[in-house]
């Protein structure tokens, strides 16, 4: 079947959306952008293909009446096991790379001990990390780097101590290897991985209402549908680095405008807060951009600002919003300058202000900047859509709702849980239109 793919290369994450010729979304994929946009775009595309395959399986299995009550559960299990398989592949790759780098480094005198230590570390990692893919388990991140990194650190510390090896050597080996592993394009034999995952599912599942073979056949058929890469459009900060001809590249402004229009056709104003950029976009009834403004040279008020604050406070980016939600008052933070905000934050902490209250103030500060950019682009006159990574932050959303109401009255505010895909969705639609129109 014909497939149209949009890829949004952001400064933090790279997103892909796959669409069929009717404009229906087949799959979505996301990965961290790394330092290598090429790999990031391959990985995100692959992730989108995976989710498209699951979607196709979903369509096929849903057609069997007896399966009706089970489809969701089955597919969740299939995806979970598929992720596990994929993860174990990568973990194995990382292990091999580490072993290779350990042999290659200037540690000839402890070469054997290092290899033994790495085997120990990875053995423990596999056990520990596999649990993350057990039914109902929660993962803090879906990115390999995040999951593997922290566990490696812990295990390597223990193993190093037990074996009397220098911990920093193990760290160096890891740092070198993770980059190599991440930047190695993933093996693309998805079908085999899916089949192995399905085997695990069928083993786990005790009360299948149909013959296991029927499930196997349906999944197999879905896996065999050819997903033709009919047209790809790239967008986002890294788009110029894509090895794409010009007609395959669209600015993120256009893509975000169109993407938001596809999700909410009545949208007239779009705010996107990404890592490097904040954009205020005005679109018409067809999703055509009529005006836009971006933050000026100063990156204050972008997603990075929150990242910086998280680093300053030594907490995870995802923890910022929940902590800020616990605030009992909002401390006024005046510096939207990222560097000064750090100083102001320490000043406030020193004055005895509560962390939650300060964070609430910081969220307000970033949203204030965004509101200024919206104002610069022409304000909010009708339905409003908020997209980008920061749209997932509940504290930022709370402030935004408040400020939009204060400044522009009661307008409809759309925030889609998948809003991070807005740019890629617009890009996919541009790809579809390039062929279908």
């Amino acid at each position: 079947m014909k497939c149209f793919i949009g890829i949004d290369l952001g400064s933090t994450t790279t997103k892909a959306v796959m669409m069929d010729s009717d404009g229906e979304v087949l799959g979505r994929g996301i990965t961290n952008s790394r330092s290598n946009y090429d790999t990031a775009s391959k990985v995100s595309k692959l992730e989108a293909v995976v989710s498209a395959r699951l979607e196709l399986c979903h369509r096929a299995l849903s057609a069997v009446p007896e399966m009706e009550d089970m489809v969701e559960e089955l597919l969740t299990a299939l995806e979970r096991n598929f992720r596990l398989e994929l993860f174990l592949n990568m973990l194995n790759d990382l292990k091999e790379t580490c072993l290779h780098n350990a042999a290659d480094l200037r540690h000839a005198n402890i070469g054997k001990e290092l290899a033994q230590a790495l085997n120990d570390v990875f053995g423990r990692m596999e056990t520990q990390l596999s649990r993350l893919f057990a039914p109902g388990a929660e993962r803090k991140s879906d990115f390999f780097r995040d999951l593997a990194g922290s566990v490696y650190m812990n295990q390597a510390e223990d193993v190093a101590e037990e074996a009397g090896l220098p911990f920093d050597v193990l760290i160096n080996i890891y740092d070198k290897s993770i980059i190599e592993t991440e930047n190695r394009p993933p093996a693309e034999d998805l079908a085999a991985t899916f089949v192995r995952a399905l085997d695990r599912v069928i083993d786990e599942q005790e009360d299948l209402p149909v013959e296991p073979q029927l499930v196997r056949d349906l999944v197999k058929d879905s896996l065999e549908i050819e997903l033709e890469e009919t047209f790809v459009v790239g967008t986002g900060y890294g788009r110029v680095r894509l090895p794409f001809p010009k007609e395959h590249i669209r600015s993120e402004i256009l893509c975000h405008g169109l993407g938001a229009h596809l999700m909410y056709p009545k949208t007239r104003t779009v705010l996107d807060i990404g890592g490097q950029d904040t954009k205020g976009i005005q679109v018409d009834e067809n999703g055509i951009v009529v005006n836009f403004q971006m933050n000026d040279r100063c990156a204050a008020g972008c997603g990075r600002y929150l990242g910086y604050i998280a680093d300053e406070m030594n907490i995870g980016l995802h923890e910022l919003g929940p902590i800020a939600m616990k605030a009992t008052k909002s401390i006024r933070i005046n510096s939207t300058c990222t560097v000064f905000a750090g100083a102001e934050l320490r000043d406030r902490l020193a004055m005895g202000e509560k962390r939650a209250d300060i964070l609430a103030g910081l969220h307000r500060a970033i949203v204030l900047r965004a509101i200024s950019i919206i104002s610069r682009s022409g304000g909010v006159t009708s339905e409003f859509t908020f997209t980008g990574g920061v749209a997932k932050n509940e504290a930022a959303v709370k402030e935004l709702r408040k400020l939009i109401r204060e400044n522009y009255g009661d307008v409809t505010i759309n925030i889609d849980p998948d809003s991070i895909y807005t740019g890629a969705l617009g890009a996919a639609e541009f790809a579809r239109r390039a062929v279908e129109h």
Partner: protein
Amino acid sequence: MSTAEIIARCQALYDDLDFTSARQWKEADPKRKVIGYMPVYVPREIIHAAGMLPLGILGGGDQMEVIHGDAYYQSYICRIPRSTIELGLTRKLDFVDGMLFPSICDVIRNLSGMWQLMFPGTYVRYFDVPQNYDDTIGGEYYIEELKELKSGLEKLGGVSITDEALRDSIAIYNENRRLINEVYDFRAKQPSKAPSVEVYLLMRAGMVLPVEEHNTILADYLEAAVDEERPVRDNCRIVINGAFCEQPPLNLIRSIEMAGCYIVDDDYMLINRWLLDEVPVEGDPITNLSDAFLHFSADTAAKYCDRAEDVGKYLLSTVKKTGAEGVIFTAPSFCDPALLERPMLQDRMDEHNVPHISFKYAENSGQMQPIREQAGTFADSIKLWS
């Protein structure tokens, strides 16, 4: 009245971004008009003589969130025009009938044009003072400018401004300047008795109150302050320079004093002390105002210094007069006049062995730790030297 009561009143005026007292003044009589003005100098006597209230607009301070004002300015432009626009757009100045934008720098100059475009109903004037101080050149030009301002206000208010009224206004403002200078002199002599935040708030009150009322407050404060016992700190004495437009947050002024520096002179709200001598009441009032401007006025970076040897002379004389031990150059970030002038002033201070430090602020600066540290170190070093 105690100083605390007086200052509490001034603080309330300072905090009130809705300018309630000026609104009430206006509401008392339907014929009344309010004329806003920005730093650094406008001849308030003419506004006063028209029966109007001159209202100093000094930005939004550190308690106002600026949203739409930011939409109009790039990150490399100072803060005062943003918050001033915000005041305008949030209708906090909707009772103001006219706005005067003195020729202080290109940002304020362009703000006059923005005001014309954004608030078409308002009387807006870019008030271009001469940078040539010859009576027959700059003087004649300025007299004409003053007359244009006068007739503009007459038209706006449907009144005629008589010479008599102008003379009365000059006399009242002479009294205001006398009292203000007295407060400054008092502080320079006994800085522990007149904390800088208090002096600052007293001066700010003069931006929003009718001058007659301000005169009363100043007199009351002087009377109360003399008798009040306050702890004396082992502080050094410094002069503040460069803060003549966008104003620092109160916390900054307080921090400097707490860190060990008594402020014995400053250039905050210089309009209060712009004309150095009493303006003669006899003779042609417009000519008198012009003469005072040309020959007996204070100095800032917004003014052209026509003789190289005079650069920094005013600051130096302030240092000498107040017995200051050093100068703190505090300029708002991105303030062209103050920051361009600063190296010349610093050289002049070096020539005369006047120690100095410098830092920047914004009207909404939040972090005071670096300021406290710098001012504290400066105070310590001055004590060690002397």
